[in-house]
């Protein structure tokens, strides 16, 4: 490996063998004075043959193209619609929130631990404060439960004191150190051997995919557009090469005036393809474990521990849907597509949860899955206008506390676009999303007659049909699941899976063998048994 430092960026080139060595090198380079970030050279992207895509017809045009339909991209699309500019969001998957967003624990961090002075720290505290209003406008669940950092004894005092000081510097509201008994008054499920805690009342949770969907639906209701299954392969540039003229996609070329790179795990690829690579994404995997709803409604808040006891990852919490979620763990992964649950990560998450909560065991696990965080080597958000391309804004390196920060990220990104393009305000913007409450939340006495398809989560046929024909149409089993919760319960689709497939096939007027779980290649049924 060789390293060259240019304009405050350490470029790593040459043969890369051991991925952990690369990650360690990237991290240590960022610790050196004068180095802001590190990037792995990507000659493969710089030399990509785009002739096939350049030969394709122009299929669309707009003012701003947002690349990536995660919580960041969806939030940015909505924020941009507060201005008089056309917005088109491109997502390579078959639905929004299919990447890092869907496998996130949904914690709305208070901001006590982000390093003071970092972009993360500022956007986290700002974003947290915006969630109340956003939740009420968009109609997603936000449970502001507060969270604890648990400490076992005197050896944790310095850590907790450090967090308290950092929290105050970051202007986190309401933070205080509580003794064990006072903490257990707030959180009775907390293990008895926890001596004192840092209490941060502004922390809470959301379902991240629910937020992303709600943001994008509202963006669409305000005139934004969305193309799914549309992967960006490269860019065409103006004659002088100073700006992007077209976004080249698997659907064809899209003419635009500005590009926002919110491509999550692939934001580095987009940057290099746009001739502006100055950071790399090194995926950090995390395992999340979900427990049966009926298990404990006992946990009210979020429990974490001082990093001394466990050096990485999150602890037990309740999701807004009332299921208990533990995790995530953290491990570096060379492959961005590697979403496998490793045994070590699974064990780590369960052992950590068991230590924090009394009366818990792993017997009520209903599912577990893994996601990859889109980390950069400087471990901070990269949100800025390109220095080389005059119509490109990067929103990259969005990892924890990315969900908490996302409302502030969207505002910042929109402001950056406006620095380059002065679109005036959109007076007709309506921040309130039109939507219906789910059937399961209606009073049993008030409900009419509907066919229940998913019995674990009480999801009706009407809800599934509405999801399929919704503002962002659900085209896959997973997309139906994210919108309605069908198949998300304790039987994990064992009962309703075949019914959901039948409804999808009927509504989309396709054969059941053409229905996919999560996009092309994930068909569940192979063939008919009888001609």
């Amino acid at each position, binding site marked *: 490996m060789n390293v060259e430092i240019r304009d405050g960026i350490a470029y790593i080139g040459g043969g890369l063998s051991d991925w952990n060595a690369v990650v360690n090198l990237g991290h240590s380079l960022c610790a050196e004075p004068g180095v802001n970030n590190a990037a792995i050279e990507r000659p493969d992207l710089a030399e990509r043959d785009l002739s096939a895509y350049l030969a394709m017809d122009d299929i669309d045009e707009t003012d701003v193209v947002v690349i990536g339909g995660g919580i960041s991209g969806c939030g940015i699309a909505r924020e941009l619609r507060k201005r008089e500019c056309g917005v088109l969001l491109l997502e390579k998957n078959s639905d929004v929130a299919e990447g890092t967003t869907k496998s996130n624990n949904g914690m709305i961090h208070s901001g006590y631990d982000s390093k003071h002075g970092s972009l993360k720290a500022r956007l986290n505290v700002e974003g947290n404060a915006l969630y109340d209003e956003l939740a009420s406008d968009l109609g997603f669940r936000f449970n502001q439960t507060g969270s604890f950092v648990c400490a076992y004894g005197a050896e944790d005092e310095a850590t907790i004191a450090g967090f308290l000081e950092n929290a105050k510097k970051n202007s986190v509201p309401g933070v205080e150190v509580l003794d064990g008994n006072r903490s257990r008054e707030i959180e009775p499920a907390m293990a008895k051997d926890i001596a004192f805690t840092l209490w941060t009342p502004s922390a809470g949770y959301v379902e991240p995919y629910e937020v992303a969907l709600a943001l994008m639906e509202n963006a669409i209701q305000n005139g934004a557009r969305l193309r799914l299954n549309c992967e960006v392969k490269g860019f065409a540039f103006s004659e002088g090469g100073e700006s992007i003229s077209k976004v080249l996609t698997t659907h064809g070329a899209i003419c635009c005036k500005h590009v926002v790179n919110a491509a999550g795990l692939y934001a580095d690829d987009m940057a290099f393809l746009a001739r502006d690579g100055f950071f790399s994404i090194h995926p950090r995997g995390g395992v999340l474990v979900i427990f049966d709803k009926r298990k404990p409604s006992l946990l009210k808040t979020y429990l974490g521990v001082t990093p001394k006891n466990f050096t990485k990852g999150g602890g037990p919490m309740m999701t807004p849907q009332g299921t208990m979620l533990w995790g995530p763990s953290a491990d570096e992964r060379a492959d961005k597509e590697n979403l*496998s*649950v490793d045994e070590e990560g699974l064990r780590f998450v369960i052992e950590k949860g068991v230590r924090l909560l009394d009366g818990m065991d792993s017997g009520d696990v209903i599912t577990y899955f893994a996601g990859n965080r889109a980390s950069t080597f400087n471990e901070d958000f990269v949100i800025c206008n390109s220095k080389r391309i005059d119509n490109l804004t990067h929103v990259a390196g969005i990892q924890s506390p990315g969900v908490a920060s996302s409302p502030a990220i969207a505002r910042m990104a929109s402001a950056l676009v406006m620095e380059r393009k002065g679109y005036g305000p959109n007076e007709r913007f309506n921040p309130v999303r039109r939507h219906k409450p789910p059937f399961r939340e209606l009073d049993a*006495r008030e409900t009419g*007659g509907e066919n229940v398809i998913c019995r674990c989560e009480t999801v009706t046929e009407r809800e599934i049909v509405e999801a399929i024909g919704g503002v962002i149409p659900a085209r896959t089993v997973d997309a139906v699941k994210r919108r309605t919760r069908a198949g998300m319960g304790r039987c994990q689709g064992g009962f309703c899976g075949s019914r959901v497939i039948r409804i999808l096939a009927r509504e989309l007027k396709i054969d059941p063998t053409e229905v996919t779980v999560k996009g092309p290649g994930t068909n569940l049924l192979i063939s008919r*048994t009888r001609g």
Partner: protein
Amino acid sequence: MREITADIAVVGGGPAGMSAALRACGLGAKTVLIERDAALGGILNQCVHDGFGLLRFKKQMSGSQYAQQFADAVYESSASVMTETTVLKLIPGECGSKAQSRQGLYTTGEKTGGALIRAGAVILAMGCRERPRQQAGIVGSRPAGVLTAGAVQKYINVEGYLPGRKAVILGSGDIGLIMARRMTLEGIDVAGVYEIMPSPGGLRRNVAQCLDDYDIPLRLSSTVTEVHGKKRVEGVTVADVDAARHPIPGTEVFVPCDLLVLSVGLIPENELSRDAGIEMDPVTGGPVLDNFMMASVPGFFAAGNVSAVFDLVDYVSDTGEAAAEGACRFLGGEALPEYVTVRAGDDVSFVLPGKIRRDLPSSALYMRVKRTIENAVLEILADGKPVYEKKHPIVTPPEMVTARFHESAGSGVPDAGGLTVRILGD
């Protein structure tokens, strides 16, 4: 909201619910049977194979035939049947003190509308569900093509679709064994059945008829440790396990397949029961019941796989009848009975029912044993004294063992010491 009044409301139209409804009608109770599917029959409708009804009808029937026979009888009876209807909530005692309409059931369904059913007694017959993948502890990716055996059975036998071309089956429960044969006959190549325990989870004769007959390998003391594939399953890693059921390093083998079928256990479906405040038995996974299948909340009864997982449908039908008789007695306004406990003794993991009425102690007893024992003796003790014994050439965990306690057979009604059922070996 529509209101419906009945003496007895039966929740679930599978074999337990149908037999309960039939017996309830036979005893003169005004009965409503609620089924969420379009047809009565429950899981039997996807069991096209034979081997049902041997005990009750002394002949081999397919699951479909067994279901149709009961369904025809139900439709000929006075029971009012609500299909495509889901019970949303049970509310014990909601409708006041009048015994005949004390319990409330909120239901929904496009065809039947939103309804409140008021009934004097409720028989829970919701059946059971399959344990999902995650409870088998498999790690790896999450591609399409990991399904429970029951789901595969439904796709193939009811919907008419094949969910793969080459399958690996994890777990040797009866549904997994039955599906090994069915998949083979339908053209899916079954690479093998992997069972973490040292003995099969299903009945030995199913191993003989479904695996041996088709040369499908059964690998005991081995398991699937990891699933591979990003979009569709591309294969699984299997490994041998040690006595503590941990995979043995170095024994891992990659088996290519595009379908992983899970047959790793069944769980009684008791979410409605729990919400209604009914006390549950952690061993059976069903409500704590008496010998007329009454649960801890008076007026609520359970029948079939909701009370414990049975291996023969004949027993399921029997418990439906017992529950109907109990419900009719309850409606008759008798005082709440006193009970003596029924305990699982040596080598017995559970006995259903967990208690018997002091006034009417005669009862069928259903139990599972902890291990295989040859030349076993099943013994019932009343207040510690043997009152019944029966020789069994062999008892095995997958095969439910039954006995009948007769008040007259032994020393009469047991007292505070209750009944104990135990298995003695050679």
